């Protein structure tokens, strides 16, 4: 919150600005007596002002320019981006090409042919987001919006159990367990996945509209997964212009949610074919206008007999491919890849 928006009198605001305090982060480490002397005001008034300063010196995510609302300098943004932790995908190769994992405050679209592992990756992320930060998660809850009915609870339990096993193996190795810390049980993982099932595009839009209010009550949600964003929009939509409008409206709202609540939004998409360069090619569904809507775009595809993830579009990541495997324990590294490394 900028100094200009503090609930104090205009005179005090004027004194703060002329003394050089244009942003609240500058106030965070001051004592009331110091501020009182600087501004030539009483100590009570100084205490009043400091009440609104961020207590732990954490960078205020909505700090902005003191003249233009909502503007931020690139330098401030750099600091924020460095602080953001990412959510691991449980495959080291994919995490590497993603710069650590799925990042917050961005909308990531993941698409692929049926059976390639989109839902598997979605479920893996819903489990991984709950891990503590030192294990690659964010210690938060997950919202899973299911439009196709492919969320199988038994599979989530299987992945959660494997996650618990991996965590206790890691803890045993690094002796990282703090005294009295109880490891997370598979049922705890399930408890923290909030599941929504929508059966039509109207419900889908209604739900996304309400998520803003829902999120302000549930600040511990750190990832929203929509599986899949396409399904209800591929049924006979006679008015394609309406479809494009609805989709772009949805994309904007999701982007707003990601930025406002500092969470990751993952959208799973299907594929379709288009005629380009003289032959039919595979491409993600929902058209060209949709392809601009998401921040990052990852395509999962088959290369021979192996599954690969390819970064198709990203403002900050290089185009790269990484192999992965879908195992009984969830998404993992491709085993044959590891074998090759050992032989060398």
């Amino acid at each position, binding site marked *: 919150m900028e100094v200009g928006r503090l609930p104090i009198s205009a005179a005090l605001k004027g004194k703060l600005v002329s003394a050089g305090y244009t942003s609240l982060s500058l106030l965070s480490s001051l004592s009331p007596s110091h501020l009182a002397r600087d501004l030539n005001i009483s100590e009570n008034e100084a205490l009043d002002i400091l009440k609104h300063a961020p207590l732990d010196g954490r960078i205020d995510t909505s700090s902005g320019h003191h003249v233009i609302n909502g503007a931020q300098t690139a330098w401030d943004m750099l600091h924020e981006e460095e602080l953001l932790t990412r959510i691991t995908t449980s495959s080291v190769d994919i995490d590497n090409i993603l710069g650590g994992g799925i990042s917050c405050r961005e909308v990531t679209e993941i698409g692929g042919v049926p059976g390639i592992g989109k839902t598997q990756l979605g479920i893996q992320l819903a489990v991984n987001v709950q891990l503590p930060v030192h294990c690659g998660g964010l210690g938060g809850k997950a919202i899973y919006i299911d439009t196709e009915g492919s969320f199988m609870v038994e599979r989530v339990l299987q992945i959660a159990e494997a996650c618990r096993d991996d965590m206790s193996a890691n803890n045993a190795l690094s002796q990282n367990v703090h005294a009295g810390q109880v490891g997370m049980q598979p049922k705890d993982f399930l408890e923290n996945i909030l599941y929504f099932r929508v059966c039509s595009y109207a419900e889908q839009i209604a739900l996304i509209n309400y998520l803003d209010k829902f999120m302000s009550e549930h600040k511990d949600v750190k990832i929203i997964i929509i599986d*899949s964003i396409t399904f209800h929009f591929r*049924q006979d939509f006679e008015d394609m212009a309406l479809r494009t409008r609805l989709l772009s409206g949805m994309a904007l709202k999701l982007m707003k949610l990601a930025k406002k609540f500092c969470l990751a939004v993952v959208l799973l998409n299907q594929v*379709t074919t288009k005629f380009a360069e003289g032959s039919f090619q595979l491409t993600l569904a929902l058209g060209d206008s949709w392809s601009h809507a998401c921040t990052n775009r990852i395509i999962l595809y088959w290369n021979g007999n192996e599954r690969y993830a*390819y970064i198709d579009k990203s403002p900050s990541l290089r185009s790269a491919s990484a192999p992965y495997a879908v195992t009984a324990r969830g998404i993992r590294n491709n085993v044959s890849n590891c074998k090759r490394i050992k032989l060398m």
Partner: protein
Amino acid sequence: MANRLISEMGLPKSIANVFAARSIKTAKALSLLEQRNRNEQLAGHLPTGLKGLDEALFGGIPFGVITELVGPAGIGKTQFCLKLSLLASLPMRHGGLDGQVIYIDMESKFSSKRLIEIGAQSFPEIFHMRGMAQEMAGRILVLRPVSLAEFTESLQQIKILLLERRVKLLVIDSMAALASGEFEHGASKINPLGWHISFLKSVAELSRIPIVVTNQVRSQSNDDTWRYNFQVGTRRQDLEDTPKYDSHLIAALGIHWSHAVTIRLILETISGERFIKVAKSPMSPALAFPFSITSSGISLLNDDGIEVVGQEISTIHCHGHSEIIGSDSLQFHG
């Protein structure tokens, strides 16, 4: 039921009321698991009686989703459907769902004589009791729509029956016949079955029953080896690698349908042997099981399954198919 789950989510009252009013189903994943374990037989699965397949599918054909059976003609899809219809009608103490079955027979393949034969061979103790055969067969309702419009109307009527909660399984044999053109001339080519797919999925989930759909195959033209635009350079190499002696088939109804089904079981023949494999499933490993058709339906020759790596799991083979069709029919009537 849905309202109780919503209240467990800890939503503020205004939002919870709105969701309930719009029937947006929501719950914590844990509550879903516990509710299914409590209320449904075998936590929501219809056991097929094929041990290896049931294990791979975590109990059997799951409730609430669409399971597709796809394969070349004569491989045994209808046989499998007949067996499943029987299993769903059996009383619970014999592993059934003790309910009615609706069988939509698009190609006139339903044979009640064969149904009774399967029943008598697999469960002789039930079927030799007086009146039991009639009761079991009486629970299976067979519909024979002749046009897409009639099919649509039947679906609407079925929804009412489903809400009364006596129907425990819906079989559609086959879905491909609807889109093949013999039913509807001049229909929208883009996605004539779009509404039906959505409808089936929502009806499956509302009433928590399994829906089994069979699909046909068509041969693969070279254009079908699709690639993304960033893969274009590798295409020529693949065309050379494709073995020419094997005839490759793909499932009919297109890629939208492939996305829409939750579980896809492919039935195929390789070198004269029949295999059933789990090609698409959110929770199963990629396994293929050899099977054969017997007087008691379908039986697996190997319960452990053969692991299939990579894209092989999605391809449908038809190698050596004509030989077994001929020989089986001789054994059958013999």
